[in-house]
């Protein structure tokens, strides 16, 4: 007999998973309502803004996680590198600099995808090596300091707003739509999910697995570059510190959204929800006067919880 999901143990597990999820949401919604100043347009925009930068990196991470390669630790560094390329190339005009930064982001990640896809190298180790190389070479070139744009006017178009939404939020929301379409409605997305579900089966079916993995990292690089460009435009300078720490928050958003660590299942929509949830918690903590360490602790608890819950779902 093979009746998946029907054994008593599985029923019990599912119930636990759902009740934990419901409880967490209830606590967050409850404290959001009870926190003075949270349910206001200003704080909604602030929350969205906070979610967007992490969210862009998280969208890139989503592709990597779904492809079965778990996570990358070099996305933050790629963001920094793209931001640096952007400020350095502002002489090319806004869009020229954007193109250069995007190209840099794609190349930096695609190179790692190439090594992972064609040599079967451990994705996390490769990303650590990538992080080292980017930081090392970046420090050599920039001297480790802040780099200011040669042509400050080039930043202007990126400070435009659409109604109450700034450029960051607009790019993020568009990014979610594009990522969702890529994953669910294209040949690339279908092959990517197949590779994440079973790389062996994908290869036996005739999918060019190494090429798909390379493309996956290239897409991740694209999203990092978008985040890098907007970060540079906002801060009006770039440094290797610009993207520091984003990997962890991004990965947290992916997992909290419910994309499975083992690959083959997940969506951009889920990642957006994960990023919004983290951002909402951040806003609540700020409004209530908690310090940075409380945020770190909560993020740790959330990531741990998400992994435990999702691995019990994976069984």
């Amino acid at each position, binding site marked *: *007999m*093979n*009746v*998946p*999901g*029907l*054994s008593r143990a599985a029923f019990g597990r599912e119930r636990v998973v759902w009740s934990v999820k419901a409880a967490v949401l209830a606590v967050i919604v409850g404290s959001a309502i009870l926190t003075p100043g949270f349910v206001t347009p200003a704080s909604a925009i602030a929350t969205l803004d906070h979610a967007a930068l992490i969210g862009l990196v998280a969208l890139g991470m989503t592709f990597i996680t779904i492809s079965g390669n778990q996570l990358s630790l070099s996305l933050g560094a790629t963001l920094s590198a793209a931001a640096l390329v952007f400020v350095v190339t502002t002489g090319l005009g806004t869009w020229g600099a954007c193109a250069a930064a995007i190209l840099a982001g794609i190349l930096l990640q695609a190179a790692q995808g190439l090594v992972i896809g064609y040599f079967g190298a451990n994705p996390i180790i490769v990303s650590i090596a990538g992080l080292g190389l980017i930081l090392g070479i970046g420090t050599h070139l920039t001297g480790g300091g802040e780099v200011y744009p040669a042509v400050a006017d080039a930043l202007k178009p990126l400070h435009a707003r659409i109604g109450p939404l700034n450029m960051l939020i607009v790019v993020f929301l568009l990014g979610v739509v594009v990522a969702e*379409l890529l994953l669910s*409605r*294209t*040949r690339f997305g*279908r*092959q990517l*999910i*197949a590779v994440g*579900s*079973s790389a*062996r*089966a*994908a*290869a*036996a*079916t*005739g*999918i*060019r697995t190494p090429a798909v993995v390379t493309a996956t990292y290239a897409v991740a690089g694209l999203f990092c570059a978008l985040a890098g460009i907007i970060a540079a435009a906002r801060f009006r300078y770039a440094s290797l510190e610009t993207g520091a720490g984003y990997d962890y928050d991004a990965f947290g958003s992916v997992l909290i959204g419910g994309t499975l660590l083992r690959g*083959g*299942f997940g969506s951009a929509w889920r990642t957006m929800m994960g990023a919004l949830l983290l951002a909402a918690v951040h806003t609540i903590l700020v409004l209530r006067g908690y310090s940075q360490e409380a945020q770190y602790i909560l993020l740790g608890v959330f990531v741990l919880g998400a992994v435990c819950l999702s691995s019990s779902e994976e069984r």
Partner: protein
Amino acid sequence: MADAPLLSVHGVSKRFGVVQALKDVSISAEAGSVLGLCGENGAGKSTLVKILMGMYRPDSGSIRLDGKPVVIRSTREGQGLGIALVSQELSLANDLSVEDNIWLGSNKVPLLHRSRALRRRAAEAVATLGLDPAILDRPVGTLSLAERQLVEIARNLCRDARVLILDEPTATLSDRDIAKLFAAIRGVAAQGCAVVYITHRLGEVFEICDRVAVLRNGRVAGSHVVADIDRGRLIEEMIGRQFEGMYPPAAGASEAAGTILDVRGLTIPSVAHDVSFAVAAGEIVGIAGQIGSGAAEVVRALAGLVPEAVGALTWRGRPLRIGTRADMLKAGFAFVSEDRGGEGMFRNLSIRNNLVVTAPRALSPLWLDRVRALDEAATYAAERVGIDTGRLPHPVSQLSGGNQQKVVFGRFLDKKQIAGNGGARRMPGLLLMNEPTRGVDVGARADLYRLMREYCRNGFGLVVYSSDLEELLGMSDSVITMYRGRVSGRYPGGEEHIAKVLADITHAPQSAQVSAPATRR
């Protein structure tokens, strides 16, 4: 046998949600004998085994050992009572020696030193199974699959197993290894164990079992002394309807058709040498051979999965270089793996997505998919292979083995009828199949055989390897036999040649064919 049977199951029922997995099942196994347990996928065999192993608790009914009721709450308790299961997934540590594996996790082993008594015990156990005691020092990783299975049995013997449950032990074995395994099973039974032998292969029931119990829809459909029952009756009991011819007739019209694939001098270093054969339009070519003969690898090589393979292919009149899997797919070579769980399907994906994973460009251009067309393609394929279209969004892992195989097959069906929506599609023109019905029950097998025939009707060809000779000969229009990497014979299809084919692949002289394996079936 004095009074009560060694193992008896009385009126056991088990329900999962709305599914009645077992209903009032009673069977018994005597010491010193082999009980065959047959049934289609979903008949309740696995549930019964899991109850015996303490993984599930029955809703009602009882289990008795030597006539005494026992309650088995966990696998550990089951083992303590002497009930042991050897399943298809072996639990051996490949880097450790056979002896270490035998005692791994046993509470009899002192912490540090190797006792001579333990060594002797292990040697006795492997000797009972017909293995050379020198094997004890070899790492398990260097053994054949059959030998590993015997090691797993030896491990259980050394833990005083009295009831040994074997779950489809021959699924991956060659005929010669099966003969060895059967000898070992007889040895185990002769020591006073009760053996419960679960199999899909009916021939084996007649070869190794003393009694046979048939499960159908969770109930015992029949229980017989093997000597009193014939094959047809057994099949009827398993599938619950009159059994008609298993293998559909060959197309016939294909006789005049030309060669579509010509394979010359296919060589895989140290696996296969100079293998040549041709496939005509509409033809099913079977490759027979034991494990290690290179037969399965030849099929994989044609699929583009063996990088070191070389050979001259002529495909539809043009030379074709053996390339990567993706290259071969592009040329029109579809492949169904022998390892359905690992290579054949995407366990976590829906049935729909499994069906359209290699959808043609017409349905899935570089930018956005034509979702409607993809849905139609999936629906069409599901209907053709006989999968309930309402289940398309469900994970493929929820299906039985037979239905999973149908989904894998459905990927390669002719989608000409939907071409109006998606443009012309260049269909795979050659289907390569390894072990097309492994883990597939009798009813679904007949369906798959019909689908294989239908596939060939469009002038396509099919090359199949199967360790089930009866199936191979029943399905194929022509058969080539392989022995140690070389072609050793060529035959027309049809079961009448089974003795010769068997002699060829085991390289036994024709006169010796009356030995154990030949009486199988």
